[in-house]
C-alpha cells in the first residue's frame, strides 16, 4: 500500500485546491453582495465534502473487505468462519503450547520426585557403611558384625547398580521431556507472525478510518486508562530497560529494606 500512503496523509490535494478556490470565491461574493452566488458556492463546497466522504468510506469498506479476506474469515457462513478463522487457530495453537509445556513440566517433576528418594537412600546407606568401614579399619568389629557388614556391602552394591540405572534412565527421560521447546517454539513463531500481520492490517484500517474522521471533522475523545498497581500483570518483559520494574530479587530486597522491612 506504499503508493497510497501519500493520499492518506491528509485530504486529497484536489479537494484542498477546491476548498481554497471556493473559499476565496465565497469571500468575494459576500463582499460584493452577491448572496445567491455565495449560497451556491456553499452548496458546491458541501458537495465536494460529501463526495470525498463517499470516496473514503468506499475505500474503507474495500480495505475492510480485504482485511477480512486476509484473516480468511468468510462472514457469510458461520461454520466456515469458525473453521477458517486464523484467530481461533491461533488460540488452539497457544492452548497446545500451554498443554505441551505443562505436560513436560509435570513429566520432569514426576521423574525428579521418583529420583530424589533414591539419591537420599544411597547417600544415607553410603554414610552408614562408611562409618562401619572406618570401624573395620580401626579393627573394632567383631566377627559376627563383620559377617553382617559383608552382606550389607553386597546388598549396597546391588542396590547401587539398579538405583544408578534408574537415575540414569530418569535423567535421560528428563532430557527427552525438553523436546517441547522445539515444537512450542515453532508454534509461537507462527502465532507471532499472525499477530504482526493482523497489526499491519489493522493499522491500515485505522489510517483509512482517520480519513473519514478528517472529512467529517470528527474528533474522538479517548480516555487514558490508568493502570492500577493492584491489578496483576504477569511477568514483565524487558525489565532491565524499565525504571518502574525491579530487575530481580536483589532489587526487591533493596526496595523493601528502603521501606523499613
Amino acid at each position, binding site marked *: 500500500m506504499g503508493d497510497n500512503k501519500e493520499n492518506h496523509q491528509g485530504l486529497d490535494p484536489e479537494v484542498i485546491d477546491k476548498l481554497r478556490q471556493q473559499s476565496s470565491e465565497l469571500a468575494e461574493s459576500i463582499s460584493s453582495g452577491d448572496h445567491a452566488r455565495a449560497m451556491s458556492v456553499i452548496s458546491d463546497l458541501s458537495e465536494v465534502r460529501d463526495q470525498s466522504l463517499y470516496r473514503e468510506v468506499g475505500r474503507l469498506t474495500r480495505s475492510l473487505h480485504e482485511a477480512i479476506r486476509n484473516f480468511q474469515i468468510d462472514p457469510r457462513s458461520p461454520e466456515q468462519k469458525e473453521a477458517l478463522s486464523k484467530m481461533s487457530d491461533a488460540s488452539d495453537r497457544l492452548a497446545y503450547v500451554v498443554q505441551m509445556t505443562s505436560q513436560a513440566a*509435570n513429566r520432569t*517433576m514426576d521423574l525428579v520426585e521418583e529420583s530424589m528418594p533414591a539419591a537420599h537412600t544411597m547417600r544415607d546407606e553410603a554414610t552408614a557403611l562408611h562409618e562401619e568401614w572406618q570401624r573395620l579399619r580401626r579393627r573394632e568389629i567383631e566377627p559376627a558384625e563383620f559377617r553382617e557388614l559383608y552382606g550389607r556391602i553386597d546388598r549396597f552394591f546391588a542396590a547401587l547398580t539398579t538405583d544408578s540405572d534408574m537415575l540414569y534412565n530418569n535423567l535421560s527421560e528428563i532430557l527427552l521431556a525438553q523436546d517441547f521447546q522445539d515444537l512450542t517454539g515453532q508454534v509461537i513463531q507462527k502465532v507471532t507472525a499472525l499477530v504482526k500481520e493482523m497489526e499491519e492490517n489493522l493499522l491500515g484500517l485505522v489510517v483509512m478510518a482517520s480519513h473519514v474522521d478528517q472529512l467529517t471533522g470528527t474528533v474522538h475523545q479517548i480516555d487514558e486508562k490508568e493502570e492500577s498497581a*493492584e491489578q*496483576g*500483570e504477569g511477568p514483565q518483559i524487558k525489565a532491565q530497560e524499565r525504571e518502574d520494574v*525491579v530487575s530481580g*530479587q536483589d532489587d526487591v530486597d533493596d526496595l523493601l529494606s528502603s521501606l523499613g*522491612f
Partner: protein
Amino acid sequence: MKILIVDDFSTMRRIIKNLLRDLGFTNTDEADDGNTALPMLRSGKYDFLVTDWNMPGMSGFDLLKAVRADENLKNLPVLMVTAEAKRDQIVAAAQAGVNGYVVKPFTAAVLKEKIEKIFERIQ
C-alpha cells in the same frame, strides 16, 4: 507447621511444595486462587501462607488484604511468590502487610532465605 500454597498453576504449586518439603515442611495444602484459599484459611488452622499475585478469581493481593482484615487471620505470615515486578506493586504489597516478597523466577536458596527470615522475625 501447616502451610497453604496458593497459585493458579499446578506446576508452580508443585515446585513450591517440593522446595518446602526439602526445607522440612511436609504439611502443605494447595489452593488455586484466593476464593478457594480464604475458606481453607478460615477453617484450617494454617501457620503460613505462600501465595501468587496474579490469579483468576481472587488475586493474591486481594487475598492478602482479606487475611489482614480478618480478626482471626490478621497475624498469619504471608509470603508472596509472584512474577509481578513493578515497584508500585511491591510497595502496595508491603503496605498491605506482606511479610516477604519473592519474584519469579526464583531459586530454592532465595525461597529458603525469605522463609527463614519471616520465622526469625515472628519468634
